[in-house]
């Protein structure tokens, strides 16, 4: 559960209230739960509170690993089956029917 949107900290006032930006939308949020957050950081914001500083390196690393993994998988699949029909095409039945 729990919607939490990555947001950039624009500024933080003395009371621990930060102004955050999501794709140009701004609002206030508390950084009380992320005391190390600083302007310029990206944070996950839930219900008006920053709950985590987003790890940029981790994001890059995750994407790199996924890319590698899928390249490998792809090589295996194409190696095994030649030019197979692409898997994962949507089934005809709508989601709710399953």
């Amino acid at each position, binding site marked *: *559960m*729990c*919607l*939490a949107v*990555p*947001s*950039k900290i624009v500024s933080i006032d003395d009371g621990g209230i930060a102004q955050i930006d*999501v*794709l140009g939308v701004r*609002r*206030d*949020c*508390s950084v*009380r*739960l*992320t*005391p190390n957050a600083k302007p310029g950081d*990206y944070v*996950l914001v*839930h*219900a*008006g*509170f920053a*709950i*985590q500083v*987003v*790890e*940029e390196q*981790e*994001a*890059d*690393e*995750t*994407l790199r690993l*996924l*890319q590698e*993994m*899928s*390249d490998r*998988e*792809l090589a*295996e*699949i194409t190696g095994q089956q030649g030019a197979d029909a*692409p*898997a*994962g*095409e*949507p*089934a005809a*039945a*709508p*989601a*709710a*029917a*399953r």
Partner: protein
Amino acid sequence: MATKTDLDSFRDPKLARELLDAIERLARGKNVNLMEVCGTHTVSIARYGLRSAMPEGVHLLSGPGCPVCVTSNHDIDTMIALARIPDVIVTTFGDMIRVPGSSTTLGAERAQGRDVRVVYSPLDALAFARENPPRRVFFLGGGFETTTPAIGATILTAHDEGLGNFFVYSAHKRTPPAIMAIEDDPETQVNGFILPGHVSTITGLAPYRPLAERYHVPGVVSGFEPVDILSAIARLLAQIDEGQARIENAYERGVLDEGNVVAQRMIDRVFEPCDATWRGLGVIPGSGSAIRPEFADHDAARAFSPDVEPTVEPRGCRCGDVLRGVIAPDRCPLFGRACTAEHPVGPCMVSSEGSCAAYFRYQEHSR
């Protein structure tokens, strides 16, 4: 390369297709049920059409993921009784407005003229309390561990400011006890859990370890973009393939293994575990969060004893069976009769993306 908010990379169709290929290959010859226990996962899976993209043999079940939808009739009845106290302002999250009590909803009470306001943050409720010193302001809180520390911090602020007109009703829930309760049920056939991303942001991985150690069921913490969810599914299938059961983190950019320690302390400072009733699931021991006696001045449940109507828990609701995948929604005797999208009974119908709500809409379209 990606930047922190470069969500497009985690929505990249090419990467998603490649992951689907991997899932297809890993799923061959298998018949597995994977459960997510997070309303936002439910929404993402629906929004990006991931369920229909799964190969045969991989079934995505929606667990009791929306923490507000599982708020019990008794909790809603109490909230409504609070809203009926003259001259109060009642604030809550938008999710709570439609959840039914024994005879009515907060939305219907608002139609009757009660001052019920939807807020984005409990801090907005606190602002109402500061701006309206003669009026009592209630915040009706629901949510999992993601939300609880925010409410805790708000209570602490009210406490420190001596804001005597601010009260919280806590219907907060804890996730791990619910997951264990599902696994404890002998009928449950869940082969792996897609673990909630933002709950884990707070809790870290430790509370899920018993899932792997005690029940030998794998769990992977997932983010909310399609690539996140697909990679979590692939990692679950890989574990099942190897006969492994580990708790893994596939959402490293948002979840530290130890979680957010400051937020954990905030929960412990303001709340203590209690037994809680989950709509459709019944009482789960230790799965609630009650406000500690130290903050009784801000605890609506202690500071007020309004006349609560006798609670009628919905009879015949089989949400628990639906969300464990034991029965299809239309096998529930209430489905489409007493329980519809506009007058929902169980959490699977209350949540607009819940199993029953989705099934109900599908039937509407076939008419």
